[in-house]
């Protein structure tokens, strides 16, 4: 029988070493031992992803490794998440996410989505190549607190500016997050966005930092 600490270590290591099967096995074991699913997610899977973020920042991991770590994390999340009672989430928030029209790449978008999935948000994923007005409509329909958009191509990022203006006009309190390879911090500022992630990789790095803050808040709370 594995101890709680041993299992958490296994979850963490499994994510860092992108061993999906190990993570799935440890997640099942975690539940079988009767531990709280949310602890496994936050102190195991998310803690592992934090290490991945560090490795990415230190140029030891790159996007392929991060994508494989994300697969491992999702393997565990699929097992643990259904066992988290809604009242335990501590978060009751929604996000609309998508890659903007003209952009058929969604790696950055999916990495940011992972952060919201871990945090237990309700994620409204519009996919990729999303017409601008769909972001606005979906935000209004769901009353989401955050709209996250990505563009991998310089040529599509200007669409973001229009979406931001349209959303802010209807609902100035919505927080807007931008990410994608060509979007620099200056551009995000010019567009009037509230958050920014520089690239697919930085999106995950930023996303992971947000997971870190979430974990800190949980520890304090």
């Amino acid at each position, binding site marked *: 029988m594995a101890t709680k600490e041993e299992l958490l270590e296994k979850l963490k290591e499994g994510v860092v070493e992108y061993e999906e099967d190990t993570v799935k096995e440890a997640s099942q074991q975690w539940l079988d031992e009767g531990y709280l699913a949310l602890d496994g997610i936050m102190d195991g899977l998310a803690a592992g992803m934090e290490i991945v973020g560090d490795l990415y920042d230190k*140029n030891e991991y*790159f*996007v*392929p*490794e991060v*994508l*494989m770590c994300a*697969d491992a994390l999702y393997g565990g999340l699929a097992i643990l998440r259904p066992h988290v009672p809604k009242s335990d989430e501590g978060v009751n928030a929604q996000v609309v996410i998508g890659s903007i*029209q*003209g*952009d*058929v*790449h969604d*790696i950055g978008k999916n990495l940011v989505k992972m952060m919201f999935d871990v945090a237990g948000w309700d994620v409204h994923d519009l996919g990729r*190549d999303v017409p*601008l007005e769909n972001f606005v409509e979906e935000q209004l329909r769901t009353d989401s607190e955050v709209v996250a958009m990505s563009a991998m*191509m*310089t*040529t*599509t*990022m*200007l*669409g973001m500016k*229009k979406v931001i203006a349209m959303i802010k006009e209807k609902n100035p309190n919505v927080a807007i997050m931008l990410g994608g*390879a*060509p979007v*620099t911090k*200056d*551009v995000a500022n*010019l567009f009037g966005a509230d958050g920014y992630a520089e*690239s*697919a*990789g*930085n999106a995950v790095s930023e996303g992971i930092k947000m997971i870190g803050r979430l974990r800190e808040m949980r520890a304090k709370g």
Partner: protein
Amino acid sequence: MAELTPKERVMRLLRKEPIDTMPFFSGMGMVVMPGIKKAGFNFPTIHTSAERMAWSAIESARLMNFDCVVIPYDMTMESEAMGNTISLYEDSEDILYPTIPNKMWSTLDEVVVPDKIWEKGRLAFLPEAIKIIKENAPELPVGCWQLGPFTQAGQILELDLMLKGVFKQKEKVGEVLDKLTDMIIGIGKNLQAAGCDYIVLREPGVAADLLSPRTFKEFIQPRLTRILAAWDSPKLLHICGKTEPLLEMMAQCGADGLTVDIKCDVRKGREILGPDVLFMGNVDTYTMTCDEKTPVQKSIDHIKDMIDGGVDAVMPGCDLWPAIIEENMKACVDTTHEYGKKASPAVGRL
């Protein structure tokens, strides 16, 4: 000595021969809305005929005083010629380049490159477009480009298949890259035979913020080297994103010159490469050319700083976004021509 034509200027620069002043040119998108409008077309239509492509390119260069024309404009021609369907966004009010919304292949095993792909789909009209430009604008050099094999793979397969495959399916990723490398060599040779004056191999999907330099060395560098060895000069290599860790390896790939985007500090780049490598870049293609809030003086200073930083030619760091602010765009070009009269590290002056 009389002023050189743009073509003379660029061709001499690419051979590192003395020139009159620095050119403003590129091997990536140089088509801009004022040129498209002057030619009488809408954005979605310029991708689909030799005539419209050629004239929108010529008018763009002439209006803005660019030192080149560059075709084609979009990255989907090869994928389309393999059988994928493109989206032209004909109903959109925005400027949107063609994309492949859904890829027909979902595994690395399925990739098949048709024989003589350059005779298929829109690729088939590129020689005609080159001919029209050469006949009607003999003063302008015609630049063409091909995506590198890794980035091209992202047009025919989901990119995460390739990215994860670098670890999980090394052999299969290698096979796909080899097939595409052969294709790229063939298309490039066909463009050169049709009269393109210089060619750029652009591989934006392999920057050091995406792939490790180790992966670059193992998977990418050998293929870029093979492509560049097969093409005639002049030939350039461009990589977007974080490139400082890659510059030395880029310089070993056999290109006549290297080009980079805004994420590369040109001073550091020049320091890494030394004075003899033809090194070009890296105009910020949003802030300096498209943002109405950018004062013209800021665009001018941006170009001067780049020239002082050690570039041999000023080049947009990426495709120019077509909705340029004319005043800023012209200031970028004029400043290059005026401020670039002194010799650059790798190229002297007449």
